[in-house]
């Protein structure tokens, strides 16, 4: 069984599975994309945001 037919049989053959794949994929992409962008944003603004200076002011957790 070739890769493409395996792909077809697992994800595209049944519409319910296809729709589920789209939804799960969108969710996973959303989470991953947010993590990636946040990582870049925090690196770019290193030392400026509240989470970077918070430790100076919290007394106990």
């Amino acid at each position, binding site marked *: 069984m070739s890769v493409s037919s395996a792909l077809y049989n697992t994800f595209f053959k049944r519409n319910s599975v296809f729709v589920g794949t789209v939804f799960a994929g969108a969710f996973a992409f959303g989470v991953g994309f947010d993590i990636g962008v946040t990582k*870049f944003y925090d690196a770019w603004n290193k030392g400026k*945001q509240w989470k970077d200076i918070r430790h100076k002011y919290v007394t106990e957790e």
Partner: protein
Amino acid sequence: MLSRLSAGAFKKAASAGASRSAVNGARSASVRFASTQASGSAALESVLNSRAALATATAVSVGTIAWYTHLYGNLPFLGEAHASHLSDEGLHPQAYPWSHKGVLDTFDHASIRRGYQVYREVCAACHSLDRIAWRNLVGVSHTADEARAMAEEVEYSDGPGSDGEMFQRPGKLADYMPAPYPNEEAARAGNAGAYPPDLSLIIKARHGGADYVFSLLTGYQDPPAGVEIREGMNYNPYFPGGAISMARVLFDGLVEYDDGTPATTSQMAKDVVTFLSWASEPEHDERKKYGIKAVIIFSVLTALSLYVKRFKWGPIKNRKISYNPPADKTH
């Protein structure tokens, strides 16, 4: 579809084109007189030259100009004489390199914290900050415990209680910043008739925004020769008109920062302006992060749609249509 046309159709089209261009050539030679010679346009001509047409055109022009000037004041292409001086507009503030200026830059939250201290210790004596509650500081410049402690130092009137009376209670996180004066009249009475504006949205409310307020706070100086400032007013070239009721309020060493930053005049001005920038745009950091996401997603979608368009149109644009005329059977 083309194949259904007879060969004669093409010939006709070609000759029609040729004859038309010949007509065009002939006409262009006499184009100046075309309208006067054309008999069909005589009626139209008389309408266009009528008095009614003249009156209508005049009415339309006058009406348009009147409407425009009513909406926008004056016509854009006419020069104007102003009996005013540039100083009435206020000196243009220079552009400062704010730590949050770039499209990817967040606020400098340590600066917001120092700026809050300056606001509390200096500006809050005259200016309210109505739209900021104690809870807004949590996770921005202060911890929840710090904000709660600061709120509790202020007394708020609440109620009515079960006895129908208003009562005093210590502040909580949900309370808004206390105002120095109970109402505008009291504020004016305390400031020689001038109203210290609420600072919540001041950065958005002034041309030049943060640059302007910084310049205003640091720009006090003696009035230049020939400029007279009334008693109780102060000269500041950045303030439109030059005479402002607020005296210079920031002086070196006025506050003591808990992070050890030297409290120079410009440092305090920068910090308080950063704080006020946050106050007028608390969503700023989050907004820029969403901006990054939106730009990435929409760039990918644009590239994708361009690709799909080329992909779908490829066969249509590259196909070749050939026409084989049917053999002429008469000869």
